[in-house]
């Protein structure tokens, strides 16, 4: 029984994710091919810009940027889409036989699927910039998993809050801009003042991005402090999101 339920959960998530991906390119001629083409082209543009304009500051600057950027997009893609997951699926909410979270989770999973496509493009650029292959690259898997857990927690919170306050969407957009600038996406963290460095290092998204760079670019494992930060942020935010969602469940159902 338990196993069947899990299987059904997975089926629903796959169906919902398939729908999101099909929708996204449903009007375009090349269709799903855009899922890879889009990150490939935008990465090409960004690499060109970053290797021509800010060359001096960091070695392999395009890869430095792209590594951070795929983790950042995974996070923003998940939370932005998940925020409206309950409101968008109004009609289905009342019919669903599984916990309502399935709609939010499917949006997060959609972002992971998009991450997969971007990753294909990313690997192409790893070759172009001659980044040596290293076994530490495997550590990216747990890092992505922790990023997802963190994103899921925040998504559950945002999705339930959005049911009551539509303007969360705009506020979150502004917050993301600020958040991006303190995540050291396109500058070395050492370029900042001591105090700002301390702030940035406590930023969970910076932790995930920095860890990804360690294992992908420098062939190193993230140090213990980084691991602790990554795990604690992910677990705490996920638990908070889940509890918040549970406590608002009845109100959500009444409101939508």
């Amino acid at each position: 029984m338990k196993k069947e339920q899990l299987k059904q959960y997975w089926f629903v998530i796959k169906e919902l994710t398939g729908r999101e991906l099909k929708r996204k390119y449903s009007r375009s001629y090349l269709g799903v091919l855009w899922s890879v083409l889009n990150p490939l082209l935008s990465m090409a543009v960004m690499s060109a810009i970053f290797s021509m304009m800010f060359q001096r500051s960091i070695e392999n600057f395009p890869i430095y940027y792209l590594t951070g950027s795929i983790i950042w997009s995974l996070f923003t893609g998940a939370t932005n889409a998940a925020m409206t997951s309950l409101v968008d699926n109004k009609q289905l909410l009342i019919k669903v036989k599984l916990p309502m979270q399935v709609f939010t989770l499917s949006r997060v999973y959609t972002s992971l699927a998009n991450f997969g496509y971007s990753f294909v493009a990313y690997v192409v650029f790893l070759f172009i910039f001659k980044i040596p292959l290293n076994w530490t690259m495997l550590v990216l898997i747990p890092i992505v998993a922790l990023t997802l857990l963190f994103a899921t927690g925040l998504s559950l919170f945002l999705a339930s809050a959005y049911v009551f306050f539509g303007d969360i969407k705009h506020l979150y957009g502004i917050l993301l801009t600020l958040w991006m600038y303190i995540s050291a996406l396109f500058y070395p963290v050492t370029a900042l003042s001591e105090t700002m460095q301390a702030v940035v290092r406590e930023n969970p998204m910076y932790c995930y991005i920095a860890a990804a760079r360690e294992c992908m670019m420098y062939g190193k494992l993230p140090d213990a402090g980084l691991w602790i930060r990554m795990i604690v942020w992910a677990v705490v935010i996920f638990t908070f999101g889940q509890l918040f969602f549970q406590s608002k469940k009845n109100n959500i159902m009444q409101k939508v």
Partner: protein
Amino acid sequence: MSTGQNIENTVVQQTEPVISIKNVTMKFKIATGNVSSLKEYIIGRIKKQITHRELVALNDITFDVMKGEVVGIIGTNGSGKSTLLKIVSGALKPTSGTVKVDRNKVQLLTLGTGFDYELTAKENVYLNGAIIGFTKEYIDEKYEDIVKFAELEGFMEEKMKNFSSGMVSRLGFAIATMRETPEILILDEVLSVGDEFFRKKSMERIQQMIHGGSTVLIVSHSISTIQQNCTKAVWIEKGIQRMTGEPKAVCEAYQNMRN
């Protein structure tokens, strides 16, 4: 209408209730004034202007639905019908009282079908089927039947935005009623719309299901829908259960109140 009589004849021996609603009360806390934005909420909080008042959406509702019965719930808009429906389907937890029902057997059919109009009809069958609890294998198996019932042969690979409203409601009905085993079908206002032909066909299907041991709950504000199809009626007005019993008597009382 002959369909109504047929249903009446099928009331089988009433053993134990399939749905048992006991003293269900649902209260909501709602903010006075319309606080819809975060700004208003924060300002209101600071000024201490937001006060909550209690809205009693349902007050002490009690009735049973026996196996094979067709029960109609009637009441004006905003009387708490849809709240009751959400409670029966398990989406809402009542403030107090109990509802006994096997949630896995409940199939809900509403006007808002939840279709994604950018997708093809086939994709929507799988998406909707998954949501309402069917496995992939089961949908595979029933797919042909669904297409046939909805009379959409040759249209399934088309995007649903090109469908007429009749096609949409046929598909919605076909999906919700794909299972043959006894179940609990909840129809929310669906029988009041659609063309005559579809209504006849869907009534036949419902009858079939009742013969197979299914139970039906019809929610409507239309007197004729309730009178023609139900074996029992419950009238709910402003959250209060006004009357329960013979559809004819209940509908008459409801009509008298409205006049």
